[in-house]
């Protein structure tokens, strides 16, 4: 394997799913689950004589993102037409933004900081554009390669998209994924998009091997597919180079079924798009006061929250990172901490490892409804006071997830109250007396201690502290060993 540098740049399309209507018309932006071609009007179908009018909220959201990504913001919002022929584009041009004569992107030259394996990295953002989403193409055979014709649903046509273009600042799939996760968090914090919705983030990846031409891979639908697409494309380009074949500058399509990139044979160049200012959309000035108002509404962003949770609750940077990567989870954690004095790190570990483990990543958005923060706090508070063991706390969590209350679970299971100290010592003694064979095993093989711990848990109905039990048994086995040797 050769070791030339891999150069990767990204073009990310994010649907502004928080909007109620499309970018230029009053059709609903929620097109999902609608019968095909029912969420359309003369504007988003591009019928002659229709006039687009810009959605104010879309501009506001784009400006919020621009501020969060530390960008230089244009003093006016202007629109350009990008021309190309594709069945999903009803007007044969897309209304977008462009850096050219008389028009500009809404913002340019920003950056986003992110972490890879604990190291801080910075990716430059070239520009962000507001633009309309095209319709959706369905292939009746399931694949673009074998379908004799295409089927188009224009329900999505005209939905507001934010295009985020980075500089080629990435050199591995790992960096790309870490960056995208951070970007996703930022956009979630800004309440711009809900990434649980299918197709709400689509990424085009520009990949080249140092000194070679740039290949654009389109149609990558999820973060998990990105790694596969990059690895495939790098391997393809390397193998061409090894055979002495020139790598063509081209656009390739990621075929999710075959896990391969396929040439799409579009030969359009920038010039061919015939960008020009959209005559139907005169520019709108962005007033300084308006921008300042938006800046005031800026919520705390993931990086700032991460630092604050470390300072305020004593979280480790790892758990703080995990908690803040999801806005709902971070809010939940802080809400729980209002009702309990437990050590923050302990609470965070139980929430991240146990509670989220039982709920599942996709249900984090409903975490507060599934287990109310006060219930979780109640459990943590009992743990802090020593009324329950960590083992019981962990076993109670799935019951809370299924809708039961903390005290109800603990009372019905007889789990309230923790056995320790002298009481536990006596129980351990008894268990060891009653299980001579197990004690003999443990004398020879320390792993056999687990059986005795299990027995103690059984006898105490899990109310014994596992750590204390373990230490007691190890101590007693140690004493027995000494006695055996001295005899």
């Amino acid at each position, binding site marked *: 394997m050769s070791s030339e540098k891999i150069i990767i740049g990204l073009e990310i399309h994010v649907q502004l799913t928080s*909007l*109620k*209507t499309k970018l230029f018309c*009053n*059709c*609903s932006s929620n097109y999902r689950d609608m*019968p*095909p*071609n*029912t*969420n*359309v*009007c*003369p504007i988003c*179908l591009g*019928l002659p004589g229709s006039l687009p*009018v*810009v*959605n*104010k*909220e*879309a*501009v506001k959201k784009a400006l919020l993102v621009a501020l969060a990504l530390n960008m230089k913001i244009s003093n006016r*919002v*202007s629109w350009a037409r990008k021309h190309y*022929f*594709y*069945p999903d584009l009803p007007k044969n041009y897309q209304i977008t933004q462009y850096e050219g*004569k*008389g*028009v500009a992107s809404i913002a340019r030259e920003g950056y986003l900081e992110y972490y890879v394996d604990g190291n801080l990295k910075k990716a430059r953002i070239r520009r962000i554009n507001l633009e309309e989403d095209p319709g959706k*193409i*369905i292939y*009746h055979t399931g694949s*673009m*390669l074998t*379908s*004799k*014709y*295409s*089927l*188009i*649903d*224009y329900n999505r046509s005209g939905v507001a998209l934010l295009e985020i273009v980075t500089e080629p600042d990435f050199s591995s799939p790992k960096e790309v994924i870490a960056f995208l996760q951070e970007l996703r968090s930022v956009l979630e914090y800004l309440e711009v998009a809900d990434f649980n919705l299918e197709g709400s983030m689509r990424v085009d990846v520009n990949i080249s091997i140092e000194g070679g031409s740039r290949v654009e891979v389109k149609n990558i639908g999820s973060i998990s597919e990105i790694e596969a697409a990059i690895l495939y494309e790098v391997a393809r380009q390397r193998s061409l180079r090894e055979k002495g074949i020139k790598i063509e500058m081209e656009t390739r*399509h990621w075929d999710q079924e075959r896990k391969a990139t*396929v040439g*799409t*044979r579009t030969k*359009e160049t920038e010039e*061919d798009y015939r960008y020009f*200012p959209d*005559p139907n*959309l*005169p*520019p*709108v*000035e962005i007033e300084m006061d308006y921008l300042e108002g938006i800046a005031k509404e800026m919520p705390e962003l993931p990086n700032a929250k991460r630092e604050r949770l470390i300072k305020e609750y004593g979280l480790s940077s790892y758990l703080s990172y995990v908690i803040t990567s999801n806005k709902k989870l971070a809010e939940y954690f802080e809400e729980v901490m209002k009702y309990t004095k437990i050590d923050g790190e302990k609470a965070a570990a139980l929430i991240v490892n146990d509670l989220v483990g039982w709920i599942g990543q996709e249900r984090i958005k409903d975490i507060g409804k599934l287990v109310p923060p006060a219930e979780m706090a109640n459990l943590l508070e009992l743990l802090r006071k020593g009324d329950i063991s960590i083992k019981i706390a962990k076993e109670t969590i799935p019951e809370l997830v299924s809708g039961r209350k903390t005290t109800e679970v603990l009372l019905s299971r007889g789990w309230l109250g923790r056995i320790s100290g002298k009481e536990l010592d006596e129980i351990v003694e008894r268990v060891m007396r009653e299980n001579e064979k197990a004690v003999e095993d443990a004398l020879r093989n320390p792993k056999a201690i687990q059986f005795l711990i299990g027995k103690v848990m059984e006898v105490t109905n899990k109310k014994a502290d596992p750590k204390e039990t373990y230490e007691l048994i190890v101590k007693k086995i140690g004493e027995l060993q000494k006695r055996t040797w001295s005899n």
Partner: protein
Amino acid sequence: MSTKERLVNEELIERLSWLSRIKLSVEERERLSKEIVMILGYIDDILSLDVGNEEITHLSEGRLREDSPIYEIEMGRELLGQAILEEGYVKGPKVFKG
């Protein structure tokens, strides 16, 4: 680049034909070549005007609308009356020419 410097030749006509997805006959190509030279001459005339540094693309200020859905009467599938539908989808050409 001045439009005069752009060579109107067979290759350019071929490219424009491909970009617009319109097949042209030999006669059409010849006629279009002449027309394009004329059009470019006209654009050169416009570009020769001294309008100062101001880039005027629009004569009016744009406007914004509130983000509230309005269910208009003129919405939905009946607008696609001219299209060929298959199970509610618009039938279009194949997109991959492999």
